[in-house]
């Protein structure tokens, strides 16, 4: 096992500085500065198309930003990718897994890819498959998994090498309530053990229940950030969110034909 120890510096787990990204001259992310304190459970909120996935992709080295910096535990993702990438586990959204492998094979693949010893991979994979109720002797290909099972195996792959920072894009999408509760438990235990979780979501209930810190993203910029209590300010998170994002409510006169 060669997972590096967390440096004893006050570096934030994830620090974004002036991140900008445009697709075909259309800005997707227009200058984001964000600090995720180590040991926090950080929720990145935003409506569809706000730039959540784009931001997280740039933070973990999947998408090259037009400008700006991303640092993971003090290591620059784009200048020193090897050091930064060794310290994170990622669950991307809208990205396929190597789904022609069985779940067990996929875990073994990710473990060896992270440079872990085969014995450790064997032991941890069996444990993860058991805890996530995926079945250690299940030989179904991941492509034939249900959507919820795919999320779970993706999460297992992201956690296998015990990273200090987990970046999860929509981890609760398409997950049934039973699995969601299980995932919540696992993530909470991970954070209480000193890990940091950054995840994106637009399900307010989950965020309110889990997060210590939140940031609200809309149209590629951060509209609001802080601890959960600061952002909420005594109201429900959903009210704050709709107000900040500026949603519209139906008056009832349109769609009369429905």
């Amino acid at each position, binding site marked *: 096992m060669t997972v590096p120890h967390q440096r004893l510096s006050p570096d934030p787990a994830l620090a974004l500085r002036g991140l900008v990204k445009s697709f*075909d001259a259309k800005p997707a992310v227009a200058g984001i500065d964000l600090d995720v304190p180590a040991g926090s459970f950080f929720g990145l909120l935003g409506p569809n198309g706000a730039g959540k996935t784009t931001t997280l992709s740039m933070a*973990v*080295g*999947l*998408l*090259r930003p037009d400008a700006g910096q991303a640092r993971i535990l003090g290591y620059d993702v784009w200048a020193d*990718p*090897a050091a930064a*990438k*060794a310290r*994170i586990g*990622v669950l*991307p959204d*809208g*990205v*396929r*897994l*190597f*789904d*022609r*492998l*069985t779940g*067990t*094979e996929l*875990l*073994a*693949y*990710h*473990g*060896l*890819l*992270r*440079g872990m010893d*085969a014995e450790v*991979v*064997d032991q941890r*994979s*069996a444990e993860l498959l058991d805890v996530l109720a995926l079945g*250690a*002797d*299940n*030989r*179904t*290909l991941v492509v*034939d998994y249900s959507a919820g099972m795919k999320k779970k195996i993706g999460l297992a*792959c992201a956690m296998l090498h015990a990273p200090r920072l987990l970046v999860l894009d929509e981890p609760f999408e398409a997950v049934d309530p039973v699995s969601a509760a299980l995932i919540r438990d696992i993530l909470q235990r991970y954070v209480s053990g000193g890990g940091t979780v950054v995840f994106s979501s637009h399900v307010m209930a989950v965020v309110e229940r889990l997060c210590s810190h939140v940031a609200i993203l809309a149209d590629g910029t951060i509209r609001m950030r802080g601890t959960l209590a600061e952002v909420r300010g005594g109201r429900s998170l959903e009210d704050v969110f709709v107000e900040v994002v500026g949603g519209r409510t139906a008056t009832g006169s349109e769609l009369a034909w429905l």
Partner: protein
Amino acid sequence: MAVGVRHFVKLKLRITANGLRGQTWRVALFVLGAVLAACAAVGGYALFSLPGLLDEQRAAEVALPLAGGLVVLGWLFLPLVFFGVDESLDPARFALLPLPRRTLIRGLFVASLAGVPALATFAGTLGMVDSAARLGGPAAALVQFVGVVTGILLCAAVSRSLTSAFATALRSRRARDLATVLLACVAALLGPLQLAALAGAENADWTGIARVADVIAWTPFGAPYSMGQDVAAGRLWAVPVKLALVLATIGLLLWWWSATLERAMLGSVGRSGPRERAASARKPVAQLVPGWLPRTRFGALTAREMRYWWRETRRRASLITFSVVGIFLPVFIGVSSGTVGAPTGMLVFVGALAAVSLANQFGFEGSAYAANVVAGVPGRLELTSRVAGFSVYVVPSLLVIAIVVGLAVGRPETIPALVGMLAAAYGVGLALVLPISVRVAYALPDTANPFALSSGGGMAKGLLTFAALFGAALITVPMQLVAFLAHDVWLWAGLPLGLLYGGGALLLGLRLAGPMLDRRMPELLATVTARQ
């Protein structure tokens, strides 16, 4: 409002145009493809109108059906081997729309004609109308025009139905059996083929060829292209018979296509259920990595590639196609050319063709490559393991090809040298293809058809394939020169020389492409991720 054929054509043109929007290299490829196709069309027209210009009635009767038959054959094989089919109109997308099957088939069929290859073929074969007009007057020209139109319909029907049927077959669980049967058939064909080709080569005179052409003119392959000459020769009765023959063939092919299409459309919604596999008691790492590979990053990457070449339909299709073409072609050429000695040039082609399967290796798995980017796999390691995983299948095939070819041409003592030539071509091909796979990868559409390409993809694939084949032929010229000039030396020096040559080229290619991949991992991921 009734849905007509023109809606499908408009949709196809719109999708093609949108696919080009804002992508300079795609526009460039498209233009290049169109120019090449126009050249081919002009060349074809000139060639096909030659018999008329020379006023050679008998020559026209022999040459036109033969050439026309070749055109149809080309439409049959080229999509399978080189180009794939342009499936910008994916049949599965129409599954939920309330369309009668007849409307759907007619629409998809006509839309498949609205493309560069079909237009170029049509324009080229119009030369036959020219010939018919000069030899038999306006009546012959009119009949030949009808023939050419049915001909292009036949070409499209052949390529559509065959790729669709092959795709359906490959998706099924019996695909492995099918592959085995195909290979066995080819192997079994070798004996009789050899005899037939030898006999043909011995009496290769004008009357022999003319007799063959007369027979072909009565098959669906040659029939559409011989009608005009029938009028010119006064055999008016032949025209309706041939027309009926061709139309019946088209009808049958379309019916077959629609049957396989139905299955494909259902398949994309409700697969045949998850594959049941026997539970395994082995440890996770042992399940992934076979015992003879190291339990390291390299082992994991290679093992994953090996699984993918067999489990993913697209890759399996390209493996099987390569094996069949790889054995069939050199033996066929070697035996029928009649010259003593092995078809060295053909083997260079086969070795390079093997490597070309990797030209879009990152496109195969699409966005799944993100896992390797996040893990920060070094470029050199990534490429080495991919070559290793692919070679597990290809190197044995190449050995078999060398042995079969050596035996088929009756020169078993040349087998080691043939292996050397194949190794050199494969190595050089890989060296050329690896940078290509990093620089010009493209996304593959997410459909059930392993031969499907998004619009423009076929052009890219074809061009890159030819570039790599041409490059490999060029770079292996020293090897071929040694083989040609110093035959006795080549017999014993061919194997070590070829291994050194191919190995050296591969190392160079890895050294070049590895850092290239390191620099552009995220960009590569973006290009192979299918746009939603």
